[in-house]
């Protein structure tokens, strides 16, 4: 069934789109038999089944702002994560780091790289470290020194080479 082309004339489509206008303005879609007779009841059944009440504003507000809620929760979680991470990454002092390195490692490194060690830099570094020198005493326990050297496998020739 053709529809009268009021709109076609009003919109000037006859000139703009003559092919389009030549096609009968007919509804080519169909529906199953009795579809519209049953649709209102089907909708009412669905409303009853979902327990839908008109004007559930609170739920509506939540779903309207769902992206904002999700974003707010995400930002909150990120903030907590970053805070916890920052707290655990407290700066460690150089002295504490150095103290954790075994003496044998330091000695071995010095022995292998003695040529590259700048004595002036070493001296400056030592001066800057806040270490209380033991009180010098004539009664320095030489035995303690000897024991140290023995315990750390320090050979006399090693000392000589280092010097």
């Amino acid at each position: 069934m053709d529809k009268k082309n009021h709109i076609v004339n009003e919109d000037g489509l006859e000139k703009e789109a003559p092919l389009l206008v030549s096609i009968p303005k007919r509804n080519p879609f169909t529906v199953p038999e009795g579809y519209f007779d049953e649709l209102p009841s089907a909708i009412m059944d669905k409303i009853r089944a979902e327990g839908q009440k008109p004007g559930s504003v609170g739920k509506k507000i939540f779903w309207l702002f769902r992206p904002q809620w999700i974003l707010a929760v995400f930002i909150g979680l990120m903030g907590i994560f970053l805070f916890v991470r920052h707290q655990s990454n407290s700066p460690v002092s150089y002295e504490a780091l150095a103290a954790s390195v075994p003496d044998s490692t330091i000695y071995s490194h010095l022995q292998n790289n003695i040529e590259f060690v700048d004595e002036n830099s070493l001296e400056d570094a030592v001066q800057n470290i806040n270490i209380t020198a033991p009180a010098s005493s004539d009664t320095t326990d030489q035995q303690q020194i000897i024991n140290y050297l023995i315990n750390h496998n320090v050979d006399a020739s090693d000392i000589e080479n280092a010097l």
Partner: protein
Amino acid sequence: MSEEISDNELLEQFRIESTRNLAFHMLVTKYQKRVYWQVRRIIIDHDDANDVVQNTFIKVWKNLDGFKEASRLYTWIYRIATNESLTFLKQKRAPLYIPFESVERGLSRKLTDDNFFKAEEIEKKLQQAMLTLPEKQRIVFNLRYYDEMPYEEMAGVLETSVGALKASYHHAAKKIEEFLKNN
């Protein structure tokens, strides 16, 4: 008979709890065909259109209490139906859905396969031409060409200016004409 009942009367009856269900049943009966055909022309497939139409009226049920009557009831329902249709098509394009064919090609294929599409070859070409239009432009064309909706009313449905709608409609008509010439 339900079409004789005015929108104001329907709204009045809806607001009374004892007559709410009956009023809504009558509202659906009054507007179901117009809503269905609007949705069907966008969605193409009957089963999908049925889902969208039902979702539309469920939304109408939930929000009718808050209907401010700033626009006509039908304009408001039409707007819900349009948004539901666009949401449906958007979901088909969702990032996680990896299509082997575009949504439009899928809809075009449904024209051929659909048992509820009875058209001459040229009418099928017209529907295929319309599927090449951007979604909103297709809606504008349908509302104007098939429903003969005044631009002022369409502006309320689509929340777009009359000027933009006229431009969109004429662009759509030109694109369809071009498609028909080349195919």
